[in-house]
């Protein structure tokens, strides 16, 4: 990992010309996807739907629903349904694993580079701080999107292998055509990716303020856990609409037919608000950082 960063990051300094945004983003993405840990995380995420699908098919039902959140009760329906499996595993992973990978990517992007001293290259280069943040955000966003897409893709494939392409039944009992089912999975994946971008943006903001990647990881994960505990407390109902995970249960709405859009739209807006807040704080810190 260190090799890649040291060879790639100072490149703009050496050239001393204005690097195009496209080239900077390409360099950032190459740096992200060449790290072994990125690939390991993606590989593990890809394995989850396969394991869940096989377990549900060969071991039996997921047990009585409820208690384990939306993902767990959706899983009860996921057995024998190629449409539900990818969405149910996304709902399950959204509770902890996907935020963890988004936080990892966000912590590497700024704090990790600061820790290795490689962020200096970026700061000294003739790249404006806004552009630097843009490049870093695009890197985190791309990684989050690829994590979601990998999970959705293996979920769909596992469902097809185990249950065939028919029997794409929604929670409302209607049977969907293949393109319609894929569209639903795509909507779910896009929505989950948006939620992860919000988490990634928060991770970037914390990342800009510290030089210890562990701090970023710990605070984002701690935040996710605290948020889900706060959601359980009815006494704090007034606070719930401010928490990012308030509409995460709405992901199951994708599987209903006709699809209720209220909860999903609200969740998307909430994620957008988090992104605006986090990126503006990240920009404020990054633009005053000394080179």
């Amino acid at each position, binding site marked *: 990992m260190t090799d890649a960063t040291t060879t790639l990051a100072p490149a703009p300094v050496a050239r001393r010309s204005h690097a195009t945004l496209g080239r900077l983003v390409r360099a950032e993405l190459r740096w992200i996807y060449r790290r072994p840990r990125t690939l390991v995380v993606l590989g593990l995420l890809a394995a989850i739907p396969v394991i869940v699908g096989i377990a549900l098919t060969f071991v039996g039902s997921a047990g009585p*629903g*409820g208690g384990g959140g*939306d*993902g*767990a*009760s*959706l899983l*009860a*329906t996921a057995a*024998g349904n190629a449409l539900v499996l990818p969405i149910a595993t996304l*709902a399950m992973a959204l509770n902890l694993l996907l935020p963890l990978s988004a936080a990892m990517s966000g912590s590497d992007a700024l704090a990790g580079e600061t820790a290795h001293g490689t962020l200096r290259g970026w700061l000294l280069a003739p790249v404006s701080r806004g552009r630097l943040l843009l490049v870093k955000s695009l890197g985190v966003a791309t990684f989050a999107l690829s994590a979601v897409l990998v999970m959705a893709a293996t979920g769909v494939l596992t469902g097809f292998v185990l249950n065939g392409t*028919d*029997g794409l*039944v*929604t*929670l*409302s*009992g*209607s*049977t969907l055509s293949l393109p319609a089912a894929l569209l639903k999975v795509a909507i779910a994946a896009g929505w989950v990716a948006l939620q992860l971008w919000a988490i990634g943006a928060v991770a970037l903001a914390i990342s800009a303020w510290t030089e210890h990647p562990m701090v970023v990881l710990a605070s984002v994960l701690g935040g996710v856990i605290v948020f889900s505990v706060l959601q359980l407390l009815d006494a704090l109902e*007034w606070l719930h*609409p*401010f928490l990012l995970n308030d509409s995460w*249960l709405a992901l*199951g709405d994708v599987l*209903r037919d*006709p699809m*209720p859009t*209220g909860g999903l739209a*609200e969740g998307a*807006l*909430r994620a*957008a*608000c*988090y*992104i*605006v*807040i986090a*990126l*503006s*704080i990240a*920009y*404020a*810190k990054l*633009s*005053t950082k000394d080179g």
Partner: protein
Amino acid sequence: MNPKKRAVTVAVAGTAAGAIGLGIMAMPAGAGEAPELPSVSAQELVESVLKADPPALSGNVAIDNDLGLPAMPGMAMLNVESARVYHDGDHASRIALEQNGSEVTLVQNGGTAWSYDAADNTATKTTLPENAERKHKAAGQDELADPSSAAATMLDYVRQSSTVAVDGTATVADRAAYELVLTPKPTERTLLREVRIAVDAENRLPLRMSVLTNGTTEPALQIGFTDIDFGPQPADLFEFSPPQGAEVTDSQPRNKPEQLPDKPAGEVTGEGWDSVYVGSVPPETLDRRPDSDGPDARGLLDQFGTRVQGEFGSGYVVSTKVGTALITDDGRFAVGAVPQQVLTEALGTR
């Protein structure tokens, strides 16, 4: 502007914009002020509701339940928080009861009714007798032939025990609505304070019902539309064909409701708000287990009820915000929206 100043500006502006966005979303929907509507008397309002046919609509119904019911095993069906409702303005309707991660769909189209439970992938088809609807309608028409006299009869009956009034207006699901309020007369011994029904000013469709109990400001039970759209609905919403692989059962509607073997036999004593349903079940049903691995009914009562003793003998009292139930050890029971004392009196008269 120096970089430091700009950084602060950006941070403050961005945070404020995001926080305002979150704040707007946190604002309770439908908290608008009461709309101005021409005044209407309670009788006119009830009459117009009886006269009105529900138009084609689609909407979301939220069920807020603050009854204080104990969480019982095997009562997942009660765990419904919201439902989507579709009606074609004629005979067909579709109701989707949303549960956490699952759904129960009820589709009714003229002669056929389907119910589908996604959690266990089962569908039930009920064919309604062809003349049932007509008969129902005819029977209903006798009574409701003249909505104004029907409204008068109904109000006369209700007014024996309650005060009925139109109490201002409200905004429900962005629609202007009249609030019809039923308040028990002071002589009624009940836990309930009032029942409010919001009626759409234009379509005269009941939009929301709230049950308020003594000593609370939040409704103990509220069922109402959170959003509603009037207009024609796609016809395929009211068709249902069971998905492949679903377990389909045919059920014939019973013409006469059969006496269930252990149906508790009972009767209603009292009138109005403090009526009490009194009856008895064989004492051995208390020892039956609802789940094979769950506790028996007596165990549940031990857990959720309070042990009481009195003239009626000894038994358990289960109290919620809207009602009380008293079950004695020899299987007699009394249920009502009343305080415990009324129940013990009702049991004593038997």
